[in-house]
């Protein structure tokens, strides 16, 4: 099977979504009018662009996530062998986690975990 199954699933998904949307495109009736394509905002015409600049808070979360995500990458192979390696594995990971936890505490204290 191997990675072929991935391709299979990919095609499955593509076919399914594509098929459904295409079928709907074929059979569904459409009717155009002037305001149909306008963005919906509770029935009021929008003011200003919808693509606006956001707050730095979003970035901070993504950033902290990224760091811990990398941590996760290392944890998986570690977790697989931890019972084999024994106590050294524990000490190593305690150090590793502790260092990153410091980072979390720093972010916490700095207020980076506050949503704006």
């Amino acid at each position: 099977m191997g990675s072929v199954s991935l391709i299979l699933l990919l095609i499955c998904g593509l076919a399914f979504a594509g098929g459904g949307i295409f079928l709907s495109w074929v059979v569904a009736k459409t009717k155009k009018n002037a305001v149909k394509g306008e963005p919906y905002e509770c029935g009021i015409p929008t003011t200003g662009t919808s693509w606006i600049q956001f707050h730095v808070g979003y970035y901070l979360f993504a950033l902290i996530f990224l760091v811990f995500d990398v941590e996760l990458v290392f944890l998986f192979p570690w977790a697989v062998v931890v019972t084999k390696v024994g106590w050294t594995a524990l000490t190593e990971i305690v150090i590793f986690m502790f260092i990153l936890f410091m980072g979390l505490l720093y972010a916490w204290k700095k207020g980076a975990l506050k949503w704006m």
Partner: protein
Amino acid sequence: MSASTVIFYLISAFILVPAYLAVTVHKIFRAAIYLLFSLIGVASLYFYLDNNFIAAVQVVVYVGGIVVLILFSVFLTHESGKDMQQPVEKREFFSAIASVCGFFLILIQLSLHNFGPSATAIQSDSIQAIGLSLLSTTMGGYSLPFEVVSILLLAAMIGSIAIAIKAKPEDTKTEPAKSQAQ
């Protein structure tokens, strides 16, 4: 041409075409999405090469992490729907020439060099092996880099939080001033 080869070329195309689009499209959001596709393509190449773990790492960090970060920063810094400023044509031209030249240079190198016979042994349960050498403290083990990475990440996190938050007082300075005025 076997199915496997076909798949390889498909994957190659899936890496290169979005990559090219990523560096040429005008909308920054789209560029990020094309980058995403290219990175997924690279991940599937890893899958293709039976390096599942690396592929998953690629997906987790690049797709789930870095691209999301880039997307957020796009929202943060840009009116993301607008077209970007286009480079000067002259510069575009010369960059293209340089890149193509470099590409052919390496192409020639590649065709001249013989890498020897490809080994055929399949890696056995690479994740176990990776885990073991990650934790081994002997020569050839990676436990020191492993810890160093944590410090690197810590540094990156602290650094970027500090940098990103630094500008904030300036931003918010106007607010208290306003409330005092009331």
